[in-house]
């Protein structure tokens, strides 16, 4: 199968009922500065809106921000919807304060396991900088 050509484009937004948009806003600026095309969807974004935007700009990746602790619930079924929309191999990242219970946050490998099981390629802690995310994505896309 032919490998998809890297388009240097990403979709960024905050998922679910979550109104925190500043982390995503910092990310979109970093990615634009790094030469990416960015569809920045702001906050309170449903899964399908991420996917529609990804199709529209032919995105390499969807970067999901979740700051209010319910990311584990909001991200369920995301990969399935991507597959349905023909985005089987799109890179999915999630980052932020992704789980409300502190006992889960303290057990980070368990959080990683759960998101991997849901089809996410990576999950980033809230302390990760935007520059680190950009560097990682470039590596994952083979354009570092």
């Amino acid at each position, binding site marked *: 199968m032919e490998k998809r050509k890297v388009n240097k484009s990403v979709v960024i937004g905050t998922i679910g009922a979550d109104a925190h948009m500043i982390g995503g806003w910092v990310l979109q600026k970093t990615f634009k500065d790094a030469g990416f095309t960015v569809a920045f969807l702001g906050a309170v974004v449903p899964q399908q809106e991420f996917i529609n935007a990804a199709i529209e700009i032919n995105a390499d990746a969807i970067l999901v921000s979740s700051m209010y602790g319910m990311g584990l619930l909001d991200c369920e079924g995301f990969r399935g919807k991507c597959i349905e929309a023909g985005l089987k191999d799109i890179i999915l990242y999630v980052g932020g304060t992704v789980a409300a*219970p502190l006992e889960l946050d303290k057990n980070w490998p368990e959080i990683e396991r759960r998101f991997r099981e849901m089809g996410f390629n990576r999950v980033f802690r809230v302390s990760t900088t935007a520059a680190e995310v950009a560097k990682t994505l470039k590596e994952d896309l083979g354009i570092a």
Partner: protein
Amino acid sequence: MAIKIKNKRLTDEEFFKIRKEEVLPMWTTGKGVENLSECIEIAKELSQGKNFALKLKEAKEKGTHLLIPQFGRALTEYTIEGLEYVEANSDLASSGAWLIYSDSYTRKLDFKSAQAGIERSKKEGMSMLNGWPIVNFGVEEARRIMKATKVPLSFNSTDEDGRLAAEIALAAGWNSCFVRSLQEVIAHCKNIPLEEEIRLNQYEARLAGIYTENGVPICPWNPSNLSGYDSAGYRCFVNVSESLLAAEQGVKYQFLELGQNMNLIQDIAMIRVTEKLSNEYCKRFGYNVEFFTGGFPFLGAWPPRAEEANAMIAWNAIISIMCGATGVILKCQDEAFATPTKESMAMSVRIARHLITLMGTQKIPDNEALRLEEAMIEAEVRALMEKCLEAGDGDMAVGMCRGVEAGWVDTMLTPWKYNKGNVTVMRDAEGAVRYFNTGDIPMPPEVKEYHKAKLAERAKKEGRELNFDMVVQDLQFASRIAK
């Protein structure tokens, strides 16, 4: 655009029509609060000796502080367990109150997702929601929580429509809901027009008015939490303008709560000017309102390590205490990671309580820097208020809508699509928040110059030109930690 909203008290007929047609049918638990007079009677009994408004009044008269930790878990048992733990492991009961928040699905009226979150939490044995889903549980469960605590409860309904949540909270003897509109669209909304948000909040304010008139004093929060990155003048304007809308609905007590930017002088000036102008404008329109003030800990990004987070908890509390604010709202060291745990909240109460012991009766002394800062905030807010009143022909609700529409009521960053976002703010050499770009705000020239001069001090100190990257870096000002 024609603006239909007016800053006018809902008649009983209007209120009960909305109640029956829009509010109670939102979810099945609306049935539990159908009989309003019965709810008021039960609320009176349950809040006996732990009424939020009266506790604030008592603390203000004594010159002491009410510590206000925040909590909320997916299940009633977890929530009660948390309150009891904190009260047993700190002396919150001597002078304190709770702010209970609901989960974000509830705030968006997505009660089905909240229900799924409840079931999931039971299955996983931990709280998978970021707050207590008050609407799903309903009034009897809310009364259980009220009975379990020794201190007043206030409720953070937030987001677009907190009307049913407020009905349940007040009927359970919790003595506070929220009166806000611009605050909420900036903080949590995306698509709702301000006019509609004001309409929803008129109901919530009128509900507080009705309880108060029937012998249960309600002190709603009038908050300026906003996006976490807003100028002191904008924060103050939000409180003062909204104080008029709440007062019109018969709200007799208001808790003016301001998110702190963490500069000692500026935050204190902001809180004092807010109280002064809220009083003044309400008097001008003939409203009789008693105001209390409270400082809310920084709303931007928090540091991911306990030591730094505890430094922030202490610094935020010190600012509120030195200001003489009656309410000292607390976050905890879990802020960067997760929903607060009971252990960390108890720790925050102990930190703040010890600060009050250590600081004695010290307050910030009158000084020139403070007077200047107050004068600048006051001039900015007066200019905004007067422009709104002029644009609204004396009607604040209309003026606010016009101001947002035209972009002279504006702030930097928000999920809300109607905000123009033509202003930018950054920190000066002392960490105070200044306008880098004033957009279309009607700033008096001397205030504009003042902000410019303060930023020039930072440019000089850092030996570099001010630029937009510094605005972005400032967003992480408090969350970066030294390695």
